């Protein structure tokens, strides 16, 4: 890559469709040019349930982004979420005929093998992220390139998606004549934009609590160890408030954003919030403690589900850099101490860690779309340059690669 290239990340979320246009420089620097954002319709729990409406919203967001950045978007990186996204570990191995220097293409073959072995008729692999390599059955290394071995084994953290639901999302964008360059899992994107390499080395859990889903990924010693999607998010909190306090959804949503707190000390017994009536709702007072109880029970449940996953994989004690929370729900009042207590570690709000980012974009709910752009930039930067090795790479690519693996 010799000059700047435009990278576009698209996230079709449950509450909003977001497009981020960035410019990546040959040195790897990413500059965000602008965003387009439209409230979503036809998306439930992160999955498209009404293709026409979802398409309309995302094309509005694309047009808005094009107008704001004065670019023409031709291809995009797409974030895909939903309960069908699963993270798992997979081990592949290959033997070399003679002890030989391991080269990048060997690793590509391993990646490809991981893809072939873990894909089925209905599951498609989105990411095969290398966790560790084992040489000759004993020596564990981070990057084996340049080392000599007879046998290489690789453990991948794979993230896969349901083929048809993936196709539904892709088709939604294809309708507008765009090419989908690559599909990115939001959890991976969130980690890419909200955490630093140091944090990932120390061990960090990244939570993206959106409206429809909660995506999580845990990095230990720099590599992803656990990831997944819970189809529970901010909409559930709103729904709980609406059902528990018998309020219309719009008012419940406003209460969640403006009044609810996870800090028990903010509500005294007898504290009430008076809600003004309007045409469709006669005003009422609700007990603040009730509101907080409803919200905290839901958030606690989400966190406990994730914590139990960490516990069963024995990863809970390794989160040196704590928990990073992003997504729309990161703005919930009292969330950080609540999280810190539940996970027994520190917690912070995740914001896009991009240099020179304008204040308006320094928002936890933009972590994922910006992360998708960041991941896209990394993919573009790793594109093969012309050279002898790359020729080989391209050769393998033509045989195996339907899609470029992200690593």
């Amino acid at each position, binding site marked *: 890559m010799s000059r700047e290239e435009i990278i576009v990340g698209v996230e079709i979320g449950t509450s909003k469709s977001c497009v981020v246009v960035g410019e990546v420089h040959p040195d790897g620097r990413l500059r965000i040019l602008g965003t387009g954002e439209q409230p979503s319709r036809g998306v*439930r*729990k992160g*999955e498209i*349930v*009404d293709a026409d409406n979802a398409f309309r919203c995302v094309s509005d967001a694309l047009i808005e982004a094009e107008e704001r950045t004065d670019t023409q978007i031709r291809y995009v990186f797409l974030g895909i979420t939903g*309960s069908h996204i699963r993270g798992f570990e997979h081990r592949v191995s290959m033997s070399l005929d003679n002890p030989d220097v391991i080269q990048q293409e060997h690793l590509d073959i391993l990646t490809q093998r991981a893809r072939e072995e873990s894909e089925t008729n*209905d599951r498609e692999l989105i990411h095969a992220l290398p966790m560790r390599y084992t040489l000759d059955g004993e020596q564990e290394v981070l990057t084996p390139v340049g080392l000599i071995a007879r046998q290489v084994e690789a453990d991948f953290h794979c993230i896969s998606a*349901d*083929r*048809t*639901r993936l*196709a*539904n999302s892709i088709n939604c964008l294809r309708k507008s004549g765009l090419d989908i360059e690559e599909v990115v899992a939001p959890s991976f994107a969130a980690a890419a934009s909200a955490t630093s390499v140091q944090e990932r080395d120390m061990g960090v859990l990244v939570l993206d609590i959106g409206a429809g889903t909660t995506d999580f990924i845990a990095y230990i010693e720099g590599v992803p160890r656990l990831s997944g999607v*819970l*189809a*529970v998010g901010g*909409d*559930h909190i*709103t*729904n*709980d408030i*609406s*059902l*528990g*306090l018998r309020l219309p*959804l719009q008012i419940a949503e406003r209460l969640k954003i403006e009044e609810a707190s996870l800090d028990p000390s903010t509500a005294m017994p007898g504290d009430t919030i008076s809600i003004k009536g309007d045409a469709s709702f006669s005003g009422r007072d609700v*007990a603040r*403690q*009730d*509101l907080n*109880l*409803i919200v905290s*029970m*839901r958030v*606690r*449940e989400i966190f406990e*589900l994730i914590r139990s996953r960490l516990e069963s994989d024995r990863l809970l004690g390794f989160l040196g850099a704590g928990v990073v929370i992003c997504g729309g729900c990161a703005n919930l009042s009292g969330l950080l101490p609540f999280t810190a207590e539940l996970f027994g570690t520190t917690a912070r709000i995740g914001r896009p860690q991009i240099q020179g980012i304008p204040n308006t974009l320094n928002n936890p709910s933009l972590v994922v779309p910006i992360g998708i752009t960041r991941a896209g930039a990394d993919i573009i930067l790793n594109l093969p340059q012309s050279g002898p090795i790359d020729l080989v790479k391209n050769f393998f690519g033509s045989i195996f690669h339907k899609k470029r693996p992200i690593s």
Partner: protein
Amino acid sequence: MPHQPFKSRIIGLGGAGVNALQQLISEGASAADVIAANTDVQSLSVSSAGIKIQLGRRVSRGLGAGGDPEIGMAAAEESTDEIRNAVRGCNLVILAVGLGGGTGSGAAPVIARAIAESGSYVVAIVTMPFHFEGRRRAKQASDALGALRAAAHAVIVFENDRMGEPLGPQAGVQEAFANADITISRAVLALITIACRESLIQLSLDEIFKAVELKDSRCLFGFGLSDSKDRALDALEQALQNPLMDRGLLLEHCENLVVQVNGGSEMRLIEVQDLMEALGRLIGENTQVLFGLGADPSLGGCISVIILGSVPEAEYTRRRQLLQQTGADERNLRTPAIRAQQTHPPTSFTAEPTPPPLSAATPPAALSYPKAVSNQSRPGEKPPTISPLGSPQTAPAMRRIHRQNPLPTPTARSQHPPLFAENELQEPEPHFPRPEKEDQRPPEEIQETQPEAVSTPDSQLEDRAENNDATDKSAGDSEILHATQGALDLKRSVAASMPQPEASAHPRAPIGIQNTISALVKKFSSPHSERPKLPETPSTSTKPQAPEDPPHQQQSAHSAPEFLDVDEEKLAQRGAARVVRPRSETAQAKQEFLQFDQGTTRGRFEKSAPTIIDGQDLDIPTFMRQNKKP
């Protein structure tokens, strides 16, 4: 693959059909293969099916058929081409329909015919409306069923009234509904599994079709899945408990029976052998078993059994009538103990295998008897494909059934007429002379006497006569009979003209009420329901009562002429009396409603697929599930 590349599509038609698809997709069917078709745009908009077809854009303008099959039919005719295009090139098209409403009843026959004409094999999986939904819907449903039978290659009928059975009456309402949906979607998935998946022993498509192809026949379908220690037989037992299996008692009348056994890599040959032998004991001499065996790694340590077959409608009806006459409530009938050594040739259902004493619990694995033993016990009885090599004890089977169906506790059972099985267990006093007497008569004779008993009330109700579906008719007949008996019971107990110990405190009565409630609740929640109203025809609540008391039945048979002059008004009065009588039952009914109300409040997620993690539906507010109401 042994046969050509196989393509199948599933169409959910009408409100109920579209809903069934939702369950299907969450059970793992790929969304691309399912087509949602409805006149009602709203129902389509919440479906996550890959293809959505709005029927009758001009006829119904996106508003649904309003319960009128004529509109459904016109809408389907308008959109026939669209449907045909959607399933072009498919070998197998499965049509999931709830009959009784407008779109389902009207459109299904038209669409089935259109698809069948374009060369695909069409299997319709239909649900019949609840009895309380009224005669009009029942009539629409049975008319549609008749037309559908003529149009589709095979029809598998699920009766809503019987869907809750396998769980037993104490099951939660929600559980019962989930079970009904799961049963239907499993039926669909099972069909596809048998037809599409590569197997160790592969069943070909035409074999499967042969098993269900009989016209004018009832489909038998059973699915079982188990990972217990004794998983093969457990899975078979589960399969036999499916509502469409009729406890496996009709298996002997099947000409062809498809049995597909799937298991993970751990499946052992001996398990398959045991399973097929157990099944072999239930089937008739002439039944040809088409056996498929598949290895499916995703099953892990589980074994799944799918049974598919069909019996002639006449046989099914006959059995129904026998049931009525001998006073056996179907819910009380037990699955023939599949682990038992059969002592009678299964010529009729009265010759059920003897259930063993409940205490005899021995792991079946230790009980394999040599071939000679069971052969001796059943001279001349040999299943066509497998030689019997049974284990002679059935204790685990029976215990399990009791656990699932908690009502007939020993005390309760002592008030009941004995089950046939218990008859054979030699209950000391023969206080139910009639059924026993009948037991000894050949079935033909019973059949001959039966129509007289039921035809009298039948002639009074003109609607029934219009039912062209034989089974529906017989079911309806039975209910009328039960109703009159129930009323008679009541009359007697009030007048105290006859000692009636069980009439007022009938242990099974609440079940009937619960069934009605669950039916009502389902109706409320069903998208294509009419305005809810009380059952106008004799409801299921009386159904279990009459057959339980053979002395009554005898009486009612004798006094049948008494009801010759019964008119609608009297029937209504009796209905009213029925509602008033069980005070405690209405209280229980109310409670059931409240529980249901609390358990399923999903708010804005009401129409989306549930998010189930660790067995909990996370769409329901946490505070409700953890019972901390603010």
